[in-house]
């Protein structure tokens, strides 16, 4: 049975934060697979490890790292929000406010992180 596509469900804060949580979770998971593999190169040889780690140090990857940390930080803060929704009696009532809190914290963290990360990169790289 074929069907014309329906519209997207227009959920609110709760649904979109969950979508983001899920996407960031999957993203981090795949990064972790790769990260364990690249770290394992320390068992192969220092050169191999340094070569691969070197790849993390080019300007494009620096952006990628900011993205990755952004994903982790969102997932982490939002994860804590979910835990509060689960275990704090008033969590369900304030879940939206908590999401705004998560986003604010995320923004502050990311501005600080990005600034220092880029700075360290510029200092250290050359």
């Amino acid at each position, binding site marked *: 049975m074929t069907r014309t596509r329906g519209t997207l469900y227009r959920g609110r804060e709760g649904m979109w934060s969950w979508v983001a949580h899920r996407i960031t979770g999957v993203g981090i998971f795949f990064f972790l*697979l790769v990260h364990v593999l690249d770290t394992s190169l320390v068992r192969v040889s220092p050169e191999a490890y*340094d070569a691969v780690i070197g790849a993390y140090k080019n300007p494009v990857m620096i952006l990628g790292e900011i993205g990755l940390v952004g994903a982790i930080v969102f997932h982490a803060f939002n994860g804590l929000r979910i835990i509060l929704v689960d275990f704090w009696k008033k969590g369900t009532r304030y879940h939206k406010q908590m999401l705004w809190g998560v986003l604010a914290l995320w923004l502050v963290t990311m501005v600080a992180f990005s600034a220092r990360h880029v700075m360290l990169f510029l200092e250290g790289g050359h």
Partner: protein
Amino acid sequence: MTTTNTPAAFPATSLEAPRSGRIDPKYLRSKTSSGSFEMAAWVFMRFSGIALVVLIFVHLWVNLMSGGGIAQIDFGFVAGKWANPVWQFWDLVMLWLAMLHGANGMRTIINDYAEKDSTRLWLKTILVLGAAIIVVLGTLVIFTFEPCMLDAAGEQLPRAVCPS
């Protein structure tokens, strides 16, 4: 004229009543309740999550924010950290928790979106194998790590942490 003589429905005597059996079987849930596994998994996600916040944030801080940042990371940096059993333990716990947490999260997602039971099984097999390999590999790397490796010529590499 077709006569269907509906079988007598007996008045409820036990609590099973609502499962009337009159429902089209296509709507019945596949009844493979796995005890409290789902509950345990749910609880694990919360506790591992809390632990991971600490583990990962410190990890990120130490590796990317303090000292020279990403530029400092090389073999020597890793070697320096793992010379300390606290960092060994730290990374080990982080590895295990993150992989179990992540893999369980992926399992949820597979359960949600895989449409056929066979696809579901395949994906989960790959997931379990993949996660197991990574966890074992990572554990081995942490425990068998030898900071004072010899280079191809048999010379000990010059490392700050190695007794020369």
